[in-house]
């Protein structure tokens, strides 16, 4: 959904009343969300609305609460305060509406690539499942690897299989936690192109976490910079020319602020 004018940050402002397919709620919404680990505040308060179809990158220095943000949206951990909404419904746990790709591929080593991709398709009939798996293998360029086991794949292929597995149950949102951080530079660049292509072709909403400023500013349609802990949004911008410099400055400030606190 290429709607170029989304500067108004109120998603519910003027939604067409007709068309049941168009939901008024953002794909993901965080309302005054905080998260405290034991006694240490890790995140928030954070407010964020992510309209469907957007490709949001979240960038910040390590330990700033990026991964906490993702695990709250995924439903792996409950917020200490505030509400996390997916499609207008409060998140109470993980679910197939929000696919997750981890830093490590975390493929199930006892299953083949096809078996991994089919893991979330248990409730489909056999033929349907096979068709969907074949579709994803083609989408991620893994046609020849269906029967291979994860340990027989290269790092890039593993992460592709992990993306295919996450996309298989047709999630509305794809959550990615520094998915290319462990790859070599060449593979990473190719994977970045591929994930953009997948985003375009599937229309899935993406929340992509990275500590790489270039990745953050080239990959998505919108960038938020996080500073912390506790993580707070210090910059929320649509990707445009000159944005990279701004983001770099924000990250520098966040890092030096932390260094100041630490010393």
């Amino acid at each position: 959904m290429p709607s170029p004018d989304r500067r108004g940050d109120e998603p519910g402002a003027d939604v067409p009343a007709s068309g049941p397919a168009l939901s008024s709620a953002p794909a993901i919404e965080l309302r005054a969300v905080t998260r405290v680990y034991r006694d240490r505040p890790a995140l928030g308060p954070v407010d964020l609305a992510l309209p469907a179809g957007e490709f949001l990158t979240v960038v910040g220095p390590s330990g700033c609460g990026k991964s906490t943000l993702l695990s709250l949206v995924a439903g792996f951990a409950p917020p200490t305060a505030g509400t996390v909404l997916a499609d207008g419904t409060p998140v109470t746990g993980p679910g197939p509406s929000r696919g997750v790709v981890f830093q490590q591929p975390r493929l199930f080593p006892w299953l083949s690539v096809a078996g991994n991709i089919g893991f979330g398709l248990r409730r489909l009939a056999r033929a349907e499942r096979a068709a969907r798996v074949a579709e994803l293998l083609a989408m991620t360029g893994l046609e020849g690897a269906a029967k291979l086991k994860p340990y027989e794949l290269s790092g890039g292929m593993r992460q592709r299989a992990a993306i295919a597995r996450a996309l298989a149950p047709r999630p509305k949102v794809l959550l990615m936690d520094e998915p290319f951080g462990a790859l070599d530079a060449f593979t990473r660049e190719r994977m970045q192109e591929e994930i953009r292509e997948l985003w375009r072709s599937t229309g899935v909403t993406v929340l992509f976490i990275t500590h790489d400023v270039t990745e953050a500013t080239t990959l998505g349609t919108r960038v938020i910079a996080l500073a912390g802990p506790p993580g707070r949004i210090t910059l929320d911008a649509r990707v445009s020319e000159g944005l990279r410099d701004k983001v770099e400055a924000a990250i520098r400030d966040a890092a030096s602020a932390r260094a100041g606190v630490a010393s």
Partner: protein
Amino acid sequence: MNLALRLGAVLFLLAVWQVVAWLKIWPPVFVPEPLAVWDQLLRTSSEGYSGHTLAGHLLASLRRIVLGCLYGISGGVVLGLLIGVVPVLRTLLNPLVTFVRTLPPLAYLSLLVIWFGIGEEPKVWLLLLAALPPVAVATADAVRGVHEDYLNAARSLGARPWEIPYRVVLPSALPEIVTGVRVAVGVAYTTVVAAETVNGVPGIGGMVRDAQRYNQTDVVVLGIIVIGLSGLLIDYLLQTLDRRLVPWRGRHI
């Protein structure tokens, strides 16, 4: 090359044994000649000993081992899964499992004989009790060690809570479980001879026991060799199983 080395080592041992026997430092009732043992191998294989052939004794022992291990391993996996997943059960059962594990099986053989008599039951029970703790401990540790990303991945893919143990946790723990099984079979193997000291005929342990009573050292030595060799064979089979079952062992994924 390896095979030649191993064969050489065996031949060397045999030679040392033969020389020691020839020198007659000790009487044959302490150190029988290799040939005497060989004769006993042929005789027990054809005529039998204590009313059963060598193969009959071995099969009886193997049957007990297989049964005891099957029960012990199944119980161990279930128990380990419960201990690993349910914190309350961990608190309750962990000390008990450790207690049983540290007991030498002979310590509770008498109790089992009182409970179950002198037939097959106490022997299979003894092997079960010997095989269960290593598997339970290995499974419990492995289950607790499953990286939470795998559990989270499965949940995100729509796996229901009750599906997680058998769809993710057990397969993840498989490498450690298989290692536990190898330990368990080893323990069961060392225990079977003890189990067969009470009414153990037919059975390799019973055969050895009878031979000891009549000072037939050659039969005792034969029994020991047969136990050792069959143990080697079984461990080889388990290693093969390991490679087939967990080909990803030791590989970073």
